[in-house]
């Protein structure tokens, strides 16, 4: 708990508030952007170091670890996506590692970074009251992040559908399945559109829901006094599974959706 003057409601609300700059739609969640870009750069920088030095010789420990992840992703892609594509494997790797790192922020005790940001902001003179500083450190608990990812994947689904089936083939698929009759074309279109739109929506909401719920439970645990220590430990251990699994599910579904988009029924 940060301070005694907050009510539990205030405490929770404070934790769930983004650091936002701007008004309306054009507002930007600075904390989300900052942490996600920092983690993305960390991922690319550390992997790039391996890529630069990589050779077929005896690998170092970090290289081994990176190659293990790369091979794991590569195998997942090869199992689901048949055919050659230069984009899908690196896309899957980026999704997996980036989401994993963003989820991993959840395991940092919920008050550390926000508190540091509060007093840092206060001492640096950005705000008059430390409680005016908001810092949400887990980017995947922000719908903007999960939807940014899933909408990008959705765009790729459309692009791959058109690339592999042509505009005509894609239109046919949207209107002539599941009922192959001209009279049922509107029904088909509605059904197929829902199917198509459900993909990004479910991708984004699943990731967001899991992480948001996990974050919320961490916050609730942080309010129960001394007993929070074993409870926090237990939930964190369980959460290791959740964050890895969610990253894996997002990656796997992306591969599956794109493989469906690029192959005939």
């Amino acid at each position, binding site marked *: 708990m940060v301070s005694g003057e907050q009510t539990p409601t205030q405490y929770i609300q404070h934790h769930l508030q983004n650091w936002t700059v701007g008004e309306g739609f054009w507002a930007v*969640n600075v904390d*989300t952007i900052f942490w996600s870009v920092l983690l993305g750069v960390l991922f690319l920088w550390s992997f790039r170091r391996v890529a630069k030095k990589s050779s077929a010789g005896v690998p170092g420990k970090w290289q081994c670890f990176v*190659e293990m992840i790369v091979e794991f992703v*590569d195998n997942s892609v090869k199992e689901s996506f048949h055919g050659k594509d230069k984009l899908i494997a690196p896309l899957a790797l980026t999704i997996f590692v*980036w989401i994993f790192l963003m989820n991993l922020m959840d395991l940092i005790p919920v008050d550390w970074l926000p508190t540091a940001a509060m007093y840092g902001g206060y001492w640096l003179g950005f705000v008059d009251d430390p409680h005016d500083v908001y810092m949400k450190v887990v980017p995947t608990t922000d719908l903007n992040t999960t939807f940014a990812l899933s909408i990008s994947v959705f765009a790729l689904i459309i692009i791959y559908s058109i690339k592999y089936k042509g505009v005509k083939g894609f239109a046919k698929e949207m209107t002539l399945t599941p009922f192959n009759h001209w009279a049922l074309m509107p029904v088909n279109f509605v059904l197929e559109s829902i199917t198509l739109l459900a993909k990004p929506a479910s991708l984004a909401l699943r990731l967001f829901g899991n992480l948001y719920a996990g974050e919320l439970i961490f916050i609730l645990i942080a309010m129960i006094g001394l007993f929070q220590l074993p409870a926090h430990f237990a939930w964190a251990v369980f959460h290791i599974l959740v964050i890895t699994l969610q990253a894996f599910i997002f990656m796997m579904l992306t591969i599956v959706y794109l493989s469906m988009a690029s192959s005939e029924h």
Partner: protein
Amino acid sequence: MNINATLIGQSIAFAVFVWFCMKFVWPPIIKAIEERQKKIADGLNAGERAQKDLEKAQQEIAEQLKEAKQQAAEIIEQSKKRGAKIVEEETQRGHEEREKIVASGHEEVTAERNRVREELRKQVAVLAVSGAQKIIEREIDKDAHSDIVEKLVAEL
């Protein structure tokens, strides 16, 4: 919690990350992995091949050893036979030689004996004659009784 411009920012960040990963991270790493896989596969193949070669060589060695042993046994057998034959031949020759030497010795001894006997006979004859001469000188004339003496000499 609202959807706002962060969405666009995050999309751009995501696109840039994917592009960077596709361009600079994925290809070198996957290339190294595939190369190493190939190297390991080659190494394993080479090991297997060497193992086979070794087995073949060992088999060959065993065969050659067997053959060599057989040959050695044959050679030993032959030399034993040959040795026995030589010993037999030499023994035979030795015997013959001995007999020859013994025979020639005998002959020589016989010849010597004959010669000595002849000489002795002559000397005895002379002795007898001279003895008889001395006796007869006292009693009879040499000429009158020479036929008897000659007869005696011939009888010796």
